[in-house]
């Protein structure tokens, strides 16, 4: 077998192992989907009335792509905590002593978390349809919308994989990523239009890749009517391209770093 087929088959074994845990601990998936449902309902009904939107778009249509993006980015943080847990339990040592592909443990982890994110998106989309969200575009465009969310989340998973390998304590990984991810998903066009931001924050938000994922999803789901203007920043005028560049750069940097950290985990 070639190195590539070995990597693929080992990664599948690890992915399967990670997904079995989801099957055995259904609470995981229940809570992973309950919180986005809660967010949908809270923002739609509690904040929705207070947030000023231009005519031509309902808050549900504005909100759902934002919630999708926030949820998959948060979903990706579980990658870090799960890897830290495997380290603590000695499983990474076991894997590293096996004649398996050097990147399969990380690939299997990030792919399994991608699967979890896909499930979350389906649940949220169904909830969204119930509260008034609609897809106003073609089927291929809508599929593109879901894909760009998942591609970006997959890249974030690799960043989190590195964090998990370096920090090594699941609880600390969770807290640390919360401190970074929470502002990233809020200082963006996720829940409120950028026009309401003070200027410095607004510039940051315009170039924040979370904003462009959200914008890309809005465009692809047809949740951005022509009557509603989009900021002039290049990032938001070309959100799909800008987001894909970010995802590619994150992967190009963090995949090698994470694999290297994985190989150097046995410090003691």
């Amino acid at each position, binding site marked *: *077998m070639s190195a590539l087929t*070995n990597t693929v*088959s*080992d990664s599948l*074994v690890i992915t*399967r*192992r990670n997904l*079995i*845990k989801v099957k*055995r*601990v259904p609470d995981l998936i229940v809570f992973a989907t309950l919180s986005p449902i809660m967010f949908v309902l809270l923002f739609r009904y509690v904040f929705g009335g207070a947030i000023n939107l231009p005519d031509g778009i309902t808050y549900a249509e504005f909100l759902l792509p934002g919630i999708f993006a926030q949820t998959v980015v948060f979903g990706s943080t579980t990658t870090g905590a799960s890897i830290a847990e495997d380290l603590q*339990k*000695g*499983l990474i*040592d*076991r*894997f*590293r*002593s*096996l*004649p*398996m592909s050097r990147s*399969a443990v990380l690939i299997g982890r990030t792919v399994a978390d991608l699967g979890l994110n896909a499930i979350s998106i389906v649940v949220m989309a169904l909830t969204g349809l119930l509260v008034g969200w609609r897809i106003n575009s073609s089927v291929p465009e809508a599929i593109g919308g879901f894909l760009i969310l998942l591609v970006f989340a997959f890249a974030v998973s690799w960043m989190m994989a590195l964090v998990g390998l370096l920090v090594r304590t699941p609880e600390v990984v969770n807290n640390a990523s919360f401190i970074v991810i929470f502002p990233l998903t809020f200082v963006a066009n996720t829940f409120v239009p950028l026009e309401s931001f003070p200027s410095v924050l607004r510039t940051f938000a315009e170039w924040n890749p979370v904003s462009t994922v959200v914008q890309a999803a809005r465009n692809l789901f047809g949740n951005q009517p022509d009557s509603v203007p989009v900021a002039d920043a290049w990032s938001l005028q070309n959100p799909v391209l800008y987001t894909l560049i970010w995802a590619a750069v994150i992967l190009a940097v963090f995949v090698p770093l994470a694999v290297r950290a994985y190989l150097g985990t*046995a*410090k*003691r």
Partner: protein
Amino acid sequence: MSRGGSQDAVVVEGLVKRFGGNTALDGVDLAVPEGTVLGLLGPNGAGKTTVVRILSTLLQADGGRATVAGLDVATQADQVRGVIGLTGQYAAVDEYLTGVENLEMVGRLYRLGKKEARSRAVDLLDRFDLSDAARRPAKTYSGGMRRRLDIAASLIARPRVLFLDEPTTGLDPRSRLGMWEFIADLVSDGTTILLTTQYLEEADRLADAMVVIDRGRVIARGTADELKAQVGGERLELTVGSVPELARATEELRSLALDEPRSDEQTRRLTLPVSGGAATLAEALRRLEQAGVTLLDVGLRRPDLDDVFLTLTGRPAEDAAPSGDGASTPARTEETVR
């Protein structure tokens, strides 16, 4: 070592490992002949686990070299991983997978076919008395069951060399005895094993030869008998009626002892290294009777590995801190059976 190099499944020469400014291994040499068990002994922090982690390719050494089945662990790490099995200090099993799923996963990662992995998994579960629990998640297993599953996982590819890092630490005595039987079975199948342990009784039971390390250096090596002979003499062991009598007995008998007597107030037991056999025993009894010490139990015995450890390292095996109660023989330099 004088043993033939080609027959050694594991060879370690001048191994050095530093963590920051701390030298964990300071030139360790050892060899494990094919089909035998080497017990690597030493207190906590002596460097046992570091040796195992270098041999199983998890860590890279800073100096020296090591081969496993003739393969260099530094330059042929991939091939080494194909011929070894590792059972680390904590049972590295996935608690959400069942017993059979755990073994199948490891088997697949050793590149066994699906059918092969499954049939070996079933066989191993049977052999390690886990058949009844095969379809339960490992989360529901007891500590002893997890350890057995962990060892079974490291055996699924029938490794030529098996590393067992403290395989019974944390197990209750009954599970420990069971584990010894399983390990003894492996040995009779011809597996080469390097076993680390803090339990001297364990090494005595399982190992063909032993290497004792302390602070990253080898301080003794040989068979259990050789190590015991190296310490020499006999041990006079007696139990007295009360703690004050313990002190009195120590004073009365000190001149008979070859080395500092060791007393334990909790068990009111006094241990003295002596020579002269029955005559010394009779003299000790005479002195104690004159001093009016109540004797509950008395006997002469050959030194055991605990005595070896105490003599070599100046502290008991299961205690990393130097002990202050009269067991302060300075550590000796290596006295090898070369």
